[in-house]
């Protein structure tokens, strides 16, 4: 299996308990107000909610120190967006894995039958309807009704398959963005198709909640489908889907005969090739929110397997050398380049960006199970956006957009939220 708690014993045993996981890398702290990094510890405060606290929990479980799996413990385990901020901050000064022990702790608990009631509903929906939205599979393709686009599930062929993802398929307010994306691609001359009602969930939430079997089933099925369709590229607008396809799918060992791209990478390419021209002015001061799964979590993850040996007395050396994922190799510039290419746009950066970006709050089942926490996390980001004078937050993930919009609706705020695609559409 992919997630084995015992594979991370060494990491969990060697956490220094320094609390660096709670803040941005110290060199990047810019103010007191926005000096937190992990939504979970910031909201709930007990050390247990931090990356280090979660490592301690994982170690305690693996060592059999915790016999009672209480409701409170489960709430702690799952009140975490698995945004990976702790992991990036820790790795500024170390080579320890933090995020994967968090995933593995969930897998360990799920393997023993410990999860939240909401998770049962999500996983049931996944098993029965191939989506996490608790909606019928037959409705999955409705977002594209009326679009003249190839349906690869019916045997049509295209160079590119556009994977909309569960939220774009089923959220009527957001579906329009998926439609606009397909239209944009077609206008740019891209040979694009979709899989309509046969599109399946990417499995990201199953993976992040620790349901490995379900994840593997969906991931393998998607890879098989895309291989069979003969596409050269899988393009998705969903950062969560992109992150899991890019960073975890390759671990399954199945040949992937296609390239995985996020829509921002693809559009950026088309703009730079002159296939999309942005000549209509759109005057606004905007800021860009880095979705975690498009940024620090989209680095291809290479789990370390090997031997620890000692040199220089007790110095622990890993053989082979461990590949360190510090988060800086995510997709950061393409969305920014697109935004900057829109005439009239004034892009202003927030304090926490790129590998040390603050999460939107929606990830890893938090939106479904702890909406108050999700909205609070989003409200923190909205406050940060407002602090730099932004009139709008631009993002590149439907989950971020949904959560920001919900938080704004709840607070009565007047800041706007756009997907990058919406900006491009307006500027064409």
């Amino acid at each position, binding site marked *: 299996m992919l997630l084995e708690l015992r594979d991370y014993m060494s990491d969990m045993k060697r956490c220094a*308990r320094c609390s660096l996981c709670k803040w941005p890398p110290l060199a*990047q702290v*810019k103010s007191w107000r926005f000096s937190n990094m992990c939504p979970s510890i910031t909201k709930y405060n007990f050390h*247990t909610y931090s990356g280090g606290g979660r490592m301690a929990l994982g170690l305690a479980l693996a060592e059999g120190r915790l016999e009672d799996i209480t409701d409170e413990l489960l709430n702690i385990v799952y009140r975490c967006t698995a945004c990976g901020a702790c992991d990036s901050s820790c790795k500024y000064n170390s080579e320890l894995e933090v995020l994967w022990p968090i995933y593995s702790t969930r897998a360990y608990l799920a393997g023993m039958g410990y999860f939240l009631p909401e998770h049962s509903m999500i996983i049931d929906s996944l098993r029965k309807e191939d989506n996490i939205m608790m909606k019928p599979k037959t409705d999955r393709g409705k977002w594209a009704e009326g679009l003249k686009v190839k349906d690869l599930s019916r045997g049509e062929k295209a160079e590119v398959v556009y994977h909309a993802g569960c939220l774009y398929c089923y959220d009527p307010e957001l579906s329009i963005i998926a439609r606009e994306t397909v239209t944009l691609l077609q206008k740019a001359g891209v040979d694009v198709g979709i899989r309509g009602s046969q599109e399946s969930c990417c499995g990201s939430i199953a993976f992040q909640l620790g349901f490995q079997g379900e994840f593997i089933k969906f991931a393998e099925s998607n890879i098989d489908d895309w291989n069979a369709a003969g596409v050269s590229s899988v393009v998705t607008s969903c950062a969560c889907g992109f992150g899991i396809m890019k960073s975890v799918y390759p671990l399954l060992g199945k040949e992937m005969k296609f390239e995985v791209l996020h829509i921002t990478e693809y559009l950026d390419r088309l703009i730079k090739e002159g296939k999309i021209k942005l000549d209509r002015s759109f005057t606004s001061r905007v800021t860009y929110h880095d979705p975690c799964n498009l940024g620090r979590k989209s680095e291809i993850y290479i789990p370390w397997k090997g031997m620890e040996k000692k040199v220089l007395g007790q110095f622990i050396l890993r053989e082979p050398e461990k590949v360190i994922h510090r*988060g800086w190799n995510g997709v950061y510039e393409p969305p920014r380049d697109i935004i900057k290419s829109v005439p009239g746009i004034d892009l202003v950066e927030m304090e926490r960006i790129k590998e040390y970006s603050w999460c939107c709050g929606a990830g890893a089942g938090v939106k479904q199970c702890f909406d108050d926490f999700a909205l609070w996390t989003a409200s923190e980001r909205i406050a940060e956006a407002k602090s730099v004078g932004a009139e709008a937050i631009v993002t590149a993930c439907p989950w971020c957009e949904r959560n920001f919009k919900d938080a704004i609706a709840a607070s009565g705020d007047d800041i706007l939220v756009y997907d990058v695609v919406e900006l491009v559409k307006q500027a064409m």
Partner: protein
Amino acid sequence: MGIPRDVYRSFESVVGPENISDDPGVLTSYMYQPFGCRKGVWADISPAAVIMPSSTEEVVAIARICNRYHIVFKAMSTGWGIHNVPGVEGAVSLDLRRMNHILEIDEKNMFAVVEPYVICAQLQVEAMKKGLNCHIIGAGSNTSVLASATSVAGYGPDGLSMGYSGRNLLGVEWVLPTGEVVKLGSLSTGSGWFCGDGPGPSLRGIMRGWEGAWGGLGVFTKCAVKLFHWNGPPQLEMKNVPPNYVLKEPIKYYRASLFSFPSMEKLAEAARKLGEAEIGYFISRLCPSFVGLQMAAGQDFVNTWNTGMLQEMLKYAFLFVIFANSEREFEYQQKVLAAIIEETGGQISPVSEAPEMQEQTSTAVIKVDAVLRSCFRTTGGFNTSFGAMDTVDLALNQIRAGTELKNKYIRKGALVDDGGDNSATLVFDQGHLAYTEMLIMYDHHDDESAEGAFQYLAEANQACLDKKLGPPIFQISQVGKGKHGAFGPACFNYDMWLRRIKKAFDPNDTADPTAYSPPEE
């Protein structure tokens, strides 16, 4: 050992149900404390509950409940180290994380008022916006400003220009173990936070003394600390990617230089003279492994180490940083520095003059953001020894004794071979004081290594006594009678006074004495 439900509910009524927990998962996570643990990562004793107050009033209420029901409490700020965990069964932990505000930065009078969970990195960035800077302890800017100022040691290499945490402490708000609130210095007379020693009672010697009571005398809920002039930009922008963030723009009138000397004595002489000349922003000995681990990990480090280059280059070396307020002052400081280096036979390392090295060192020097690399990166097992703050000569004696002793345990294979002398830091408080620690790295999950490290620490403590090197900074748990009980008889029985203080200020034995001193019997 849990606490009775009615007592739990009393605490709950103070902080709310979401801010108290005795869930086994929560308590276990608080027991994870590798730094200071004899072996492994788990403390022997679990807190009975963790309580998170948000205000002085809540701390007072908790202390009163503890007195009423004979519950011991122990407060922590950032909670790094086993001394933060209660050392007695049935005690409650007070995690002060919710008390995390910078209450005031008084630009004119150059001080800040902070709550316990404000870390140095936070205060520094806010102070810089007002042309001010704060002292950061050697452990790094991830540590609490208040904790080192009121309760624990407080040395850092920028202490050359910015004193040390105990020196920088001004007004204090202190919740005694009984729940009574005491205000110290000018705060007690309604005159604000500007002075720790009056008008009004000082009690500095009692509440903190030389190294602090480590949480054994109640809870410090607010304090003011001195700030210092900052001539750099209001915000330090970074470039590059992790782990190599460096300043985007060089800072004006800033220069970091690495000097090496023919002997330790010459190095110490230079450091003392630089302190006396009252120049410089930062000084620290740079030991070979410390520097190497700042820059590389794993095989990269080992390869470099095996060339012997670091050991040769940094045998007797320190990093000295000038950061002046004007061109004229910059020139003056450089002239004084050059003269002292010449007098003491020092040599400048051309490597440190390279723009890349200036960039890299400036981030670490100003932000103190990367200390972890040099202490925990090899194994996760780290401890420190010696560390009495005194004179340069005493620091030298500590280094000699520590190196000899460490080499013995390195030869046994118990410790990481860092060359033996892995001592950090030097003069501070403008040169009239000096400080050094002897760092060790070992595998805390390896029985032989952990036991070897423990024996080393015990021997180091004994060496502090036998060779009259002053009480060590840590190692509280390793000394049978407690640090003060062991060292008191060698130092005018000062431990007797600590026991009296403890008895007078904590008549019900409510504040955990483990890391401080038991009361007078």
